[in-house]
């Protein structure tokens, strides 16, 4: 035996001709400092097992083809340096596996072709917001989509992160003038978190439209992910970096007297409690004291007489409402239900449900999927019992679970409110 230090490499392999097709194989590899994941794969293929399949090309972090899961984290194999500890390697999630670590990019390529051909409707980003110098660094390794809990379903709805940067980098023109209005200067400011910015943008747009019509001036400062996915997965430093960036961006607006509103209950909870609590950011106290959940904020506007709900007409659909856990955690009741119930004739039933099962990014993980479905089954059963026309919740992931589980259309309650408000002729031109 040589004196070289060896370590174990567990590779989750896949062979469609084998029974069972998924299996884990262990290889013993000699370690040397500066060793990368790709080097390990090449050495195994060269000296131990030439049947191992994986992709790579440039070996210098430019082609973006060698991404794999290292200990459950998506990495670029040619760039990831190992420390000599045992490792587990698997194929990148969310794309169909062909063999071993090779995933198919066909579906992604088809989606990009569809976007290229139908380009005007594909992207709704104002050109001024596109940072070409930055986006053009994208090598389309799709690690962002693999890592992003929100990216799970985006490819079927709206462009997911990797597709967006691919399109912009490829020179597909972004729309002029579409997207969310961004200026304003009186007494309010809205934080539309990533789910609403990238995945299901309608609630963000409806929020801005409604607030704007009620005479509230809205600004959308530059912002990042609120950090909850990192908190949920134990990366407190990563969460803190995002929180600090958001703080830096929002503080000038707070100083000008703006409140901060989030249209997502996860975001509002994060701003109110987690920045100061879990992350221990003293500087976030000012932000926490001025942060509102959107429903809570609208309830105040109604109390102030800005919006007369009794005059609005109901929407025709029968709705079932699911309460997000992150709303319960805020202990502010169910403000949207209160508001919608005050519109005469509105048919809204509040379901007696607990967690939808997704629980942040938990249920978005491949290995947790089955358990997550089991946890959320009661919600799907409740919807099957009620048979509404529409399933309603403030939370994007809750909506996702309801829509995927039942096939029902889903909406954020602000969209219902905006629809009721916008369709009422009396309300047109009231404030604006």
């Amino acid at each position, binding site marked *: 035996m040589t004196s070289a230090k060896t370590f174990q490499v567990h590779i989750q392999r896949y062979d469609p001709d084998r029974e069972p097709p998924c299996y884990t194989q262990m290889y013993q590899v000699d370690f040397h400092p500066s*060793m990368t994941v790709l080097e390990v794969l090449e050495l195994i293929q060269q000296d131990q097992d*030439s049947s191992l399949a994986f*992709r790579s090309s440039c*070996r210098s972090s430019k082609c973006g083809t060698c991404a794999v899961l290292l200990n459950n984290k998506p990495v670029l194999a040619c760039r990831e*340096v190992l420390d000599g500890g045992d490792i587990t390697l698997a194929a990148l999630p969310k794309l169909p596996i062909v063999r071993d670590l090779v995933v198919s990019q066909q579906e992604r390529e088809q989606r990009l072709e569809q976007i290229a051909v139908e380009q005007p409707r594909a992207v709704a980003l104002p050109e001024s917001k596109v940072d070409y110098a930055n986006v*053009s660094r994208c090598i389309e390794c799709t690690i962002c989509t693999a890592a992003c809990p929100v990216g799970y379903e985006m490819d079927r709805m709206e462009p997911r992160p990797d597709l967006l940067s691919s399109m912009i980098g490829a020179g597909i023109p972004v729309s002029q003038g579409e997207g969310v209005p961004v200026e304003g200067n009186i007494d309010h400011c809205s934080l539309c978190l990533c789910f609403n910015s990238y995945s299901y943008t309608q609630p963000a747009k409806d929020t801005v439209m409604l607030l704007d019509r009620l005479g509230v001036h809205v600004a959308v400062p530059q912002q990042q992910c609120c950090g909850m996915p990192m908190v949920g997965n134990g990366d407190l430093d990563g969460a803190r970096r995002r929180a600090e960036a958001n703080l830096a961006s929002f503080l000038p607006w707070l100083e000008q007297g703006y409140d901060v509103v989030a249209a997502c209950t996860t975001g509002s909870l994060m701003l109110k409690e987690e920045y100061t609590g879990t992350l221990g950011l003293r500087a976030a106290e000012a932000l926490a004291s001025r942060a509102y959940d959107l429903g809570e904020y609208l309830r105040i506007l109604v109390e102030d007489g800005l919006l007369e709900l009794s005059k609005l007409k109901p929407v025709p659909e029968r709705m079932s409402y699911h309460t997000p856990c992150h709303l319960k955690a805020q202990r502010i009741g169910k403000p949207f239900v209160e508001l919608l119930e005050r519109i005469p004739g509105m048919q809204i039933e509040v379901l007696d449900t607990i967690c939808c099962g997704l629980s942040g990014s938990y249920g978005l993980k491949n290995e947790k999927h089955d358990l997550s479905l089991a946890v959320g089954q009661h919600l799907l059963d409740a919807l099957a019992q009620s048979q509404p026309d529409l399933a309603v919740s403030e939370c994007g992931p809750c909506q996702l679970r309801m829509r995927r589980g039942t096939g029902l259309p889903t909406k954020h309650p602000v969209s219902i409110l905006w629809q009721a408000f916008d369709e009422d002729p009396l309300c047109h031109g009231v404030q604006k």
Partner: protein
Amino acid sequence: MRRYEADILVIGTGGAGLYAAIRAADGGGRVYVRDKGLIGRGGSTVGGAGVSAVGPWSKPGDNANVQFRDTVIGGAYLNDQPMVRILVEEAQQRIVEMESWGLKFDRGPDGRYVLDQAGGHSYPRVMTISDRVGLQMVKVLRNQARLRQIERCPDVMACRLLIHNGAIAGAIGLDVGVGEVVQVNAPAVVLATGGVGQLYPSTSNPIQNTGDGLALALRAGARLLNMEQVQFYPCGLVHPPSLRGFILGIQEYAALYNSEEERFMARYEPELLEHTTRDRLARAIFTEIVEGRGTAHGGVYLDATDVPKETFLSFQHEYEVARDRGFDMQLVRLEVAPAAHYFMGGVAIDISGCASVPGLYAAGEVSGGVQGGNRLSGNSLAEILVFGARAGAHAAGYARGAIRPTPEQAQAAEVEREIRGLVNRRNGRLTPSQGKQRLRRLMWQYAGVIRDGAGLTAARYELIGLEQELLPQISMSGPSLLQNHSLVSYLELKNMITVAQTIVQSALERQESRGAHYRQDFPEEASTPFCIEVTLEGGHLRAARRPPVMSELRPGSGEEGAE
């Protein structure tokens, strides 16, 4: 076996292949695009850092004539001059077109293009997008291919070009994406498979650059041009292993030492030291290594620890990449050796990209003629745009007029039998990767930076040995063809041996030192430049000389001495 009908088949999807596909589609043909890896991801284009072009933006005094002269003098008069003329005249049209498709070159505060100075160019004329113009090019070209809904399929390795009545009739490929042998019937085929860097142990090229297109073309009867012209970048890392072949631009500012702590360039170039030309630097480093003054990992030391900090700002990517692996070049010396970088030889083509077999086209690094004996910085990205477009357009025109060939059933069946016979050969002693290592060691020793007749003759016999004795010892998994990378790797090795034989044959025939080719036994340049063409005749390689096409500039007629 699946069969497809197309007008134009494009093999390879770096910049040249994608541009050819786009032009062929615009020409009205039904285009099929196939790549061994992912579409538009695997070629060398992705790593390209600059594109050279003259245009209305050029500096005063610079124009197409100056770039022409630079390119021909740099290429040691081996260039095909009508092709160089087209390169320097048409690059600007492609630049403008690429910008209309969404490419955004770097511009200064005045709105004008940023133009970089590069070796061998008389004026600054290399256009960039930070350090990633190649990456942006393939993104834009991929998108244009999508817009035209060109049929593109990854994971297909071309195994043989089909010939019917002396003309191209399509190709047989191994589609590991679905696990089948496939046949594409097409009267026109464009080869855009890139260079040969993987024939050497240290290379800056992507792993797919195994010379497949050259082997395919040779076996189909095409002529290969100046196969001995392999450009070595003087300073590529040899350690750590994960960065083997990673080339270092900081070399221009650093000092080189051998294992005896001697700044050896003082012996070779007492005045210029490391500031001599790249080929001389490469030869000096190579000599130190083979004469036993190399480092533990087979290189020499590159010492950049005295280079001012601000100089590193221009080499941020390479500095960071090395530092992240534990090699901070501001603190430690690195081990470097020449790395195979670019291949000037290739399939002989005319100004339309036509090879010597009717219906066969080639573009980019797989083709020969444009760059002569040495390629200037930025000229390769210009070449893929200009000649990719030309090959695609001409192939579409040819396909329109061509008689649809009768599908060649017999050849297809033979390839399928051969492939099915190969897989599941589990009792071999070596893996395909180990076989490749053998070939690379041999090429480095005999057909690398410095060559001589005796070594090349030895290489010729050893290559026959590899072909006849090593190949049958390679083991492969199977029987499934689905993502069977051992089979792909074996087929690559077979191509690599074939291409290595043409390089050695051509290098033996060139009994002089010219361009990137250096013969210790013939260290001088011959008085009259000549090209070498290699063909396969009756199973034997044949090398023949012919004069280069010097339609404008002859040695001695221009202001030489740019080197």
